[in-house]
């Protein structure tokens, strides 16, 4: 491995934003045909480094040198880096939901003559490209009608169409379930065999261990070290030590649960799909939450976990058909979100960019936005309280920012997630529903967030955690419900829960006895 030629070298890259030095003197070297991982905590500068490489931040806005295929390159924009064969797939997907797979793949690159698109040719090539990434879908399908996993593959197909030599993937598996993730990782390895090198950013260290040939670790905008995975004994703990500067004893904080009586109960919850009314997304689901309990919802993507949570949270998804909600023994009505908030519910969405945050807003306003009444006299918001409360959360959640007056759009992905968490903790809920709360969060911060979840439970609140990472659910929950196709199939205590058993209940309606 070491003897392969270096195809890309970034030398002493320094990138400043007003008031923030995101990168200082970072260097990395990528060899031909390798998978090079970049690891680091939230806000370490990983995405920024990749944006420098791909021309999102053009030459002149950073200091340092990029040498690609033995020549210094100065990209003006993404197009010029793509022309050189460097294609970036961003942390947030950039496909257009209303267009078909074919249209998306060829967007900006349409085959044809004189401005007239040759659709026959396009479709033919689309089918070939889809085959290369292992997709057999009709290329006329609209992007919004396929799952995120497949969307990610379409992104790669799009990159392949551009004759990619170096593929950059910024947290490609963050929104994928285990199957889809595995498929994607296999694909990346497959591309490597065809001579396409990849740079991959991920917080899922097991994936990195699995496919990376070398790893560059960045901390606080500086290169810490480069590890040669194939050459030596690099494991997750070793990576973590590099990332956070110390080793992490365990992945979950210690906890002795103190579980009280049932205080929240949902009975016979039935909800229709918002557009296709014949389709039920929740079929007669019932569950309970006890005081001080952490309840996990396990299920594959598309099983209806988010739909269940959102429809309970003030009917913010689908058409309500039937069902009752009880809190502290009394039936409650949750007809809209503000009623749900008033009844002490909070829902942290899995999709922070489009459902969790107003990206035009600053941190302090975002933190208080779900319960403005709490810091207002009459209708007037108290700026002073707003600032001091936001600042407390900045400290307690260790949100990486110089000040809470900063816009949330300038935070790194993981730190945005912490702002969303702060926003809902501020509403002081009795029942906190967390939908994929650690998506895109680094190991250290995950540990902190688990700690926060456990603290909330220790205060006697109920917590529901929806997660696609089974180890996380098993490590965190006192009880786990499995959901399959809009139905709750089983219930496991933490002592019983094991990945294989859960998986069975997540993929069929078989009862526990049969599953076990």
């Amino acid at each position, binding site marked *: 491995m070491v003897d392969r030629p270096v195809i890309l070298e970034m030398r002493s890259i320094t990138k400043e934003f007003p008031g923030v030095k995101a990168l200082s003197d970072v260097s990395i070297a990528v060899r031909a045909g390798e998978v090079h991982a970049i690891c680091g905590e939230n806000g370490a500068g990983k995405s920024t480094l990749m944006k420098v490489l791909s021309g999102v931040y053009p030459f002149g806005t950073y200091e340092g040198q990029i040498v690609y295929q033995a020549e210094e390159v100065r990209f003006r924009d993404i197009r010029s880096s793509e022309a050189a064969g460097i294609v970036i797939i961003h942390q947030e997907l950039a496909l257009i939901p209303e267009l078909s797979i074919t249209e998306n793949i060829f967007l900006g690159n349409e085959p044809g003559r004189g401005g007239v698109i040759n659709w026959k040719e396009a479709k033919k090539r689309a089918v070939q490209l889809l085959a290369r990434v292992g997709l057999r879908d009709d290329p006329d399908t609209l992007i919004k009608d396929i799952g995120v996993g497949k969307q990610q593959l379409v992104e790669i197909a799009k990159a392949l169409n551009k004759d990619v030599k170096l593929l950059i993937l910024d947290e490609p598996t963050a929104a994928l379930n285990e199957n889809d993730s595995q498929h994607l990782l296999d694909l990346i390895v497959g591309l490597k065999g065809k001579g396409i090198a990849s740079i991959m950013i991920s917080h899922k260290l097991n994936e990195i261990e699995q496919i990376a040939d070398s790893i560059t670790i960045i901390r606080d905008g500086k290169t810490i070290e480069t590890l040669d995975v194939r050459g030596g004994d690099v494991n997750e703990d070793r990576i973590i030590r590099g990332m956070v500067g110390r080793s992490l004893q365990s992945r979950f904080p210690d906890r002795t649960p103190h579980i009280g009586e049932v205080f929240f109960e949902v009975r016979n919850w039935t909800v229709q799909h918002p557009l296709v009314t014949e389709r039920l997304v929740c079929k007669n689901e019932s569950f309970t939450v006890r005081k001080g309990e952490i309840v996990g919802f396990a299920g594959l993507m598309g099983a209806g976990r988010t739909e269940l949570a959102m429809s309970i949270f003030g009917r913010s998804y689908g058409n309500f058909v039937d069902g009752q909600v009880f809190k502290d023994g009394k039936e409650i009505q949750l007809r809209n979100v503000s009623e749900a908030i008033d009844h002490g519910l909070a829902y942290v969405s899995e999709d922070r960019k489009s459902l969790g945050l107003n990206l035009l*807003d600053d941190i302090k306003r975002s933190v208080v936005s779900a319960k403005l009444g709490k810091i207002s006299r009459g209708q*007037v918001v108290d700026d002073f309280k707003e600032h001091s409360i936001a600042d407390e959360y900045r400290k307690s959640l260790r949100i990486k920012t110089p000040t809470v007056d900063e816009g949330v759009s300038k935070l790194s992905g993981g730190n945005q997630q912490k702002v969303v968490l702060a926003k809902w903790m501020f509403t002081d809920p009795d029942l906190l529903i967390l939908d994929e709360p650690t998506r895109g969060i680094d190991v250290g911060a995950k540990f902190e967030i688990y700690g926060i979840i456990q603290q909330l439970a220790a205060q006697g609140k109920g917590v529901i955690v929806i997660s696609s990472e089974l180890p996380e659910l098993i490590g965190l929950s006192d009880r786990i419900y499995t959901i399959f196709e809009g139905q709750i199939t089983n219930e496991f205590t933490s002592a019983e829960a094991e990945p294989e058993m859960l998986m069975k209940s997540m993929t069929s309606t078989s009862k526990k006895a049969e599953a076990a």
Partner: protein
Amino acid sequence: MSGFSDVKKIFGGGTTSTARQAGILLSLVAIVLVFQFWTNGLTLTPGNLIAVVNQYSYILILAIGMVMVIIAGHIDLSVGSVAAFTGIIVAKAMADFNLPWPLAIVLGLVVGALIGAWQGFWVAYVGVPAFIVTLAGMLIFRGGNQYIGAATAVPVPEGFTAIGAGYLPEIGPDTGYNNLTLVLGFLAVVALAWREWRARRTQAEMGSETAPVWVSIARVVIIGAVVLYAAFLFAGGRVGTSFPVSGLILVALVIAYSFLTRNTIIGRHIYAVGGNSHAAELSGVKSKRVNFFVMMNMSILAGLAGMIFIARAGASGGQDGNGWELDAIAAAFIGGTAVAGGVGTVIGAIIGGLVMAFLNNGLQLVGAGADLVQIVKGLVLLLAVAIDVYNRSQGRFSIIGIFRPKRRSGPSDQTPTPTTGTPDTAKPGAVTVNN
């Protein structure tokens, strides 16, 4: 370099949107000064200033409502027609039914509210885009105005004209000035100083960085001097004139709506809905109500503007309010409002409106025809928004940066090195608009 960012703070206050306002404020000052020289001092005379206020107060009132509509992610094309429609109803009510003028004003506001409720209903509860609803409204209410007025001018009575053509009374000793205007000017300066002092105190309590004391003093002295100078100009006009009543109404509305948008829950909700309506709804914001409110509020203000206009003109006619929507929208955009919603301020829109007003006025003073005035106004709108878009794409705000001797490429040169102990001079919000 840190000194420079302090200088910026005199007008910039530190936050992103105020930094944008500072830029447009500088342009306003530049325009006024250019015309002051070009017209040999005619621009800043009592008579001319009073005329500008009289002529543009109703446009600026519309700009207040418009910026809120745009922040929420909509647009209102109907304001000119709504103003005309309200005007004719109010004029008719007074002329044909002898309605006393104070009641007529209430009637006008009610008519505005009803129209607003109509448009708000379609926008918020049916979900028809505001562009369409108000395009329809533009036709409907223009037609309504002409139907009711039967294409003739309807005069308005004496007492009513005060809101459009009235002045403060002359009271107290004969100082050669209008005393009330001077008093108001002094009060404004006191209020300014008090606000500055309070802002510093809260900042200190919050433990957040405060700008050096001299910045605050400079700000109060400079703005205070401008206010006093304006007060003396307004007070020193022809006997019987002063700061116009319509201007007073405008100032009161600007203060009230600035407070509403900045410091109240409904204000926050308007920004939230415009910034990301899905996220806002999932935070418990009732976005339909917010949309209804901004549309309704706009029509009430349009009704008010229409009444001020007919009071000034002395009669209501069929061409009243033609093209006002464009002036109001232009004011909002020149004042830094984002086209896609979510960003903007009332004070920014007012400054934007004043830029248009002084351009118009100055060009007329130098004898340019209406044709040329329109061309210049169009170009200024384009230029102002283009500069804003450019700055945003560069991740910075830099009207001031343009005047700097050397510009390195890239935003990194915008990071001032703090030299005065506190890290506040490096506060990114003061120099970027990239949020």
